């Protein structure tokens, strides 16, 4: 390895005193950022005030001109080194290399091909130039991926890494928009229904000690609140989960003469979540009522599903009616549910629904009724006469 005379950038330490110290400091910074690299000991980027020769880094690798180094480039560099040294990488390089192999495994073909091609292209250069370029690359990666124990001079705080994510990992924004939209729809729809985001009427029972909120929203309230009726319109599942909503939907279906669908669905639910002992009896009842030819409330199921269900009925189990139930569910969802939402009945429900009035705050909040705190069992003084809550 020969030092060519013209390539030396030896920092002159001729100035004395403070000037010399400043010059050394500046030189050390330049070396640490990789603008100069030492020739004798290329693995340690440090400036020594002796006759050690240095070389200038090529502008391609200057820290000021390049963007944050990408994983792909580093993988190619490591693959090249691995080929050159027949697999004998340093410990931390080996570790990085294995990690990269795992991280960008899809592009590994490219990494290996590029490494080989770059080495072949390098063969076309003169021998001296080849060594220079190898050293330049090594110095560049020493700065950009420092070995353990050496501080990273290019570190710029935590947000740098996130914005410098390489193109390799990003998915195109158009496709990302498509998978965001359900979330956006969900949150814009449910925003007014979230008690934390928009408060709840008439008042928060946990704060005001007033339980009208629970009374109004009880599962079987006589007149549902407006928010509750609105929620039935969000999805079919939402409607079926609410007992009041399901009852109204049943009324609607009875007017349409298709109430047996919902009854069948309810019977299937009962079978699914009921006790194990009643399963054969329930299956038999469902068959007699809904599926047998000429049954009183015969449901309309396509022949293939019907065949499969009837075959399963020989050995009844909890999930035997799942196919048929799903069929009926989709039927109601596609057919009756949109009509229910457009019907006068639903519109009437919406207008009739109550909007609870906000309870008036007390003028003097400190005058409020004292809470009934239960006496702690750990306190022995809580005797008959010791109720000192007031």
């Amino acid at each position, binding site marked *: 390895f020969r030092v060519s005379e013209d390539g030396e950038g030896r920092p002159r330490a001729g100035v004395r005193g403070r000037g010399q110290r400043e010059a050394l400091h500046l030189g050390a910074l330049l070396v640490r950022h990789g603008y100069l690299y030492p020739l004798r000991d290329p693995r340690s980027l440090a400036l020594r005030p002796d006759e050690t020769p240095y070389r200038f880094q090529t502008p391609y690798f200057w820290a000021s001109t390049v963007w944050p180094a990408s994983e792909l480039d580093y993988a190619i560099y490591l693959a090249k080194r691995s080929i050159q040294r027949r697999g004998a990488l340093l410990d931390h390089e080996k570790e990085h290399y294995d990690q990269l192999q795992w991280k960008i495994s899809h592009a590994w073909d490219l990494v290996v091909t590029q490494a080989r091609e770059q080495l*072949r*292209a390098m063969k076309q250069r003169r021998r001296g130039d080849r060594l220079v370029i190898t050293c330049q690359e090594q110095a560049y990666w020493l700065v950009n991926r420092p070995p353990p124990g050496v501080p990273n001079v290019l570190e710029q705080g935590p947000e740098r890494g996130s914005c410098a994510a390489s193109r390799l990992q990003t998915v195109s924004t158009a496709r990302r928009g498509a998978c965001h939209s359900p979330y956006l729809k969900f949150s814009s729809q449910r925003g007014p229904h979230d008690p934390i985001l928009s408060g709840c009427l008439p008042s928060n029972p946990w704060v005001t000690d007033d339980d009208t909120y629970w009374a109004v929203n009880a599962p079987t309230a006589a007149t549902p609140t407006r928010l509750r009726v609105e929620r039935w319109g969000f999805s079919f599942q939402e409607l079926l989960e609410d007992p009041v909503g399901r009852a109204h939907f049943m009324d609607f279906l009875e007017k349409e003469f298709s109430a047996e669908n919902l009854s069948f669905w309810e019977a299937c639910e009962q079978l699914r979540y009921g006790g194990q002992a009643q399963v054969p009896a329930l299956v038999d009842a469902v068959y007699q009522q809904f599926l047998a030819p000429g049954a009183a409330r015969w449901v309309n199921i396509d022949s293939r599903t019907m065949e499969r269900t009837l075959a399963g009925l020989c050995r009844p189990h909890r999930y035997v009616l799942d196919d048929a139930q799903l069929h009926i569910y989709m039927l109601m969802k596609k057919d009756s549910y949109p009509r229910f939402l457009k019907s006068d009945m639903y519109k009437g429900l919406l207008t009739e629904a109550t909007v609870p009035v906000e309870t008036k705050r007390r003028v003097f909040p400190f005058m409020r009724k004292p809470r009934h705190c239960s006496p702690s069992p750990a306190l022995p003084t809580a005797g008959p006469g010791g109720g000192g809550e007031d």
Partner: protein
Amino acid sequence: MAREECKALLDALNRTTACYHHLVLTVGGSADSQNLREELQKTRQKAHELAVATGARLTGALRDKSLAAEERAEFERLWVAFSGCLDLLEADMQRALALGSAFPLNAPRRPLVRTGVAGAASAVAARALSARSLRHEAEHDFDVADLQELEREVLQVGEMIQDMEMKVNVPRWTVQARQAAGAELLSGASAGASSAGGMSVEERSGPCDPSKALAATLFSAVLLAAVALAVCVAKLS
């Protein structure tokens, strides 16, 4: 066979990209010259042509619905390698643009950095263009116009990448690379044996090479014999 064709095109593109990378490395250094800029331009144009051809073939193949699953997996693998290669090419072109405008050749004082690289790189460019030798015929100040053209081409390559992303949907995480871990060593050795590629720093460890050692012993034996003969002749006369 479309697949073989795509593979050959992709190999050529890989070779050209690697050579281009090597040429860009020396821009702004002591080996920078009019010839280098011209070689850069030619290599870049070749790479662009290859990229357009490969992109068209691959897009056509992947949009074909009647492709068998195995064929499709193969094409997806090629596609991932191709898009990665384009990324590399685009990055290098952007760097060439930045460096080319930062180090103008025809400025009054040419501010080139003495990096120690001195030799011309026309052999690298010739390899990229797969030509025996290269003629330099550009006039004196073509590099200013070339920078504008380079800027346009960077944009074109960027658009091409975007366009391909929109046209073909290949989920990258499902693609399995063909090369397993450590594959570069095995085939690197074989490639080194066949085309003498892949070794460059090995020269330092030259003395351990058995063939070289054999040559050295032969040479020294001949030398010894010659010396002995010369001594004999001197004594006899």
